[in-house]
């Protein structure tokens, strides 16, 4: 692998990322999948980087999850997105930051459509006005939340307490990265690093001291892919996609998997358990799985946030092996305590996959 070749390509895919005054839109599903990731993003932005990030409790789904499941028309989607933009306009912000990759892809797609077919924008404005009496301005900048963390990766690293380095050996920890399909596969120039060799997560891993491992099935679907999972009969495709990736990455012995999509970390995490039950196979060291992180969780770990405040106890694959390599202290006794100290109970132990 010629890293110089990648660097040359990365230069062609640099995007403008706003530096402050963001309107933040949450994901429909991330708060269930990885409950503290969005909260961590806000904490990093507001408390560490002193950025203005505005959230409006009236914002809704972008409709991406139903659009990609063929349940709503593009007209509906455009109107929903127009309303989101109207909330941003009302807040006085011009930089739109979605938490979800599919939302990011859909906002980008709609803005591109409006640019090429202005009559569709006119139609969306009319529909929004008729439905809600609202108007909107288009954002000056749309960046995914992972773009923002990427933008400030060096600041986060310089404030960090821990690095992606094995604290016992001093060796960089090895990570594999997986971007969501809707990040740059539709519009390569809207993603940092493009679609084939994306840099957004690579840049974070490098800035935090780690090393990126490329593996043959890096581009393969994580196993979510909407219809693969949403349609129950297709779930075999979902787990076989994830399995293909694990089989391909395992020989490289990654210490962790980093993702930037709602679905990818969920499926890459949970299917490791399912595969272990179905086939008796595990992919991490000594019978454990390969820990899977969202980019916010990784930033939080680097900044020294308590792993349980980051929600890492909700992962199926134990993250403790990674914490131990990074030298991050954790308290097993508080792992399953809620925010008010209440006991949340213990998950049932898998029969094959080792967990802490």
């Amino acid at each position, binding site marked *: 692998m010629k890293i110089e070749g990648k660097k040359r*390509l990365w230069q062609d895919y640099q995007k403008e990322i706003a530096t402050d005054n963001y309107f933040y839109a949450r994901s429909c599903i991330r708060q269930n999948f990885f409950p503290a990731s969005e909260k961590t993003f806000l904490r990093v932005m507001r408390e560490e980087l002193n950025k203005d990030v505005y959230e409006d409790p009236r914002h809704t789904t972008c409709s991406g999850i139903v659009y990609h499941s063929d349940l709503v028309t593009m007209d509906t989607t455009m109107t929903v997105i127009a309303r989101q933009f109207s909330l941003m306009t009302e807040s006085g912000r011009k930089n739109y930051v979605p938490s979800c990759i599919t939302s990011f892809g859909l906002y980008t797609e709609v803005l591109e459509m409006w640019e090429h077919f202005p009559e569709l924008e006119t139609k969306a404005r009319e529909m929004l006005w008729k439905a809600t009496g609202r108007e909107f301005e288009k954002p000056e900048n749309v960046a995914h939340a992972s773009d923002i963390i990427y933008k400030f990766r060096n600041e986060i690293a310089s404030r960090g307490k821990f690095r992606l380095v094995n604290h016992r050996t001093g060796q960089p920890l090895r990570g594999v990265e997986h971007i969501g399909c809707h990040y740059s596969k539709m519009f390569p120039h809207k993603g940092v690093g*493009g679609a084939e*060799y994306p840099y957004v997560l690579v840049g974070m891993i490098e800035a935090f001291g780690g090393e990126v491992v490329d*593996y043959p099935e890096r581009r393969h679907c994580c196993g979510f892919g909407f219809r693969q999972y949403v349609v129950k009969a297709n779930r075999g495709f979902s787990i076989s996609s994830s399995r293909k990736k694990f089989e391909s990455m395992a020989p490289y012995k990654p210490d962790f998997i980093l993702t930037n999509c709602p679905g990818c970390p969920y499926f890459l995490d949970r299917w490791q358990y399912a595969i272990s039950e179905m086939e008796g196979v595990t992919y991490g060291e000594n019978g454990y799985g390969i820990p899977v992180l969202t980019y916010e969780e990784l930033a939080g770990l680097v900044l020294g946030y308590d792993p349980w405040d980051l929600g890492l106890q909700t992962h199926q694959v134990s993250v403790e092996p990674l914490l131990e390599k990074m030298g991050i202290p954790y308290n097993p006794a508080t792992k399953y305590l809620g925010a008010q100290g209440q006991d949340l109970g213990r998950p049932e132990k898998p029969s094959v996959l080792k967990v802490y």
Partner: protein
Amino acid sequence: MKHVVVIGGGVAGMEASAKLSEMGVAVSIVEKADKLGGKLNRWDRLFPNSRPASDLLAKLQSGMGKDIRKYVNAEVSSVRQSLKQFDIALSNGEDFKADAILISTGFDVFDAHRKEEYGYGIYDNVITSADLEKTFRKGETLKTASGKKPQRVGIIHCVGSRDEKAGNNYCSKVCCITAVKQAIEIKEQNPEAEVFCFYMDLRMYDRHFETIYKEAQVKHGIQFIRGRLSEAFENADGSVMLKAEDTLLGKPLKINVDMVVLMAGMVPSSGNRVKEQLNLTVAEDGFFNVADAHYESSGTNVPGVFVAGACTGPKTMENTINEARSAALAIKEYLR
């Protein structure tokens, strides 16, 4: 004596210059590289008969007599039409008047980096057909980046040709037969190697092409798989994993090969900059338009400016030489 300036010193430019000179026309040939011959300097053997490229080059050079003024390491920096003449200035400071211009700027090889998913310039064992030709030209044996003889080689047709994503919808015409030629050459070097050609459809249109294609299969056991490569990826040992669909079997396909050769197509030459200065028109593929596709293929939309060779679209060496001669005759007629 009438004076013609030939822009581009490759096959078409050399042959047209020789013929014009033979017909008593003063010729100046301008070439941006340090020697005449264009891409013939880089090719090893030519289809359909495996003739050494150097042999054809020597033949073309024999026509480049002393009467022809040769300017190498030079480009046309400006050209202006005044009445029936052209004022031409070169990058080396020379300037002269011409009664006619022949553009023979040829083509550029498609930049295979643009097919990012194939990994050229990123994976150690992905090369282009031009790279392979260079290896053969040096008399070297094809080897992987780690110095081993490749036992499995994948040849990918239509790289940058007939490709909406690359912005080139046209066929580059010579890649199919070049792939077959190079596949045979790989097998000649290493008969034990397995060679797989991934194609959309094989365009064996010219004389002898079908014969070579059959020879590749029957004599050399080269495998032809109808399916476009979707992506390539590097394995831990440096071999390359190819993903495609075998469209005859209707099945997805994944195979590992030690090396990949990308059949990079033809794109309009970056040397075509004179088009703005002369108000020449190009077609949607970026190659020069001709005055009449059937009857005046050497003419352009500007009287006194002629074209020959691959600057009007991909073509074989044979067609290029024929066009050069045709252009020489058309210019001679124009100068009368």
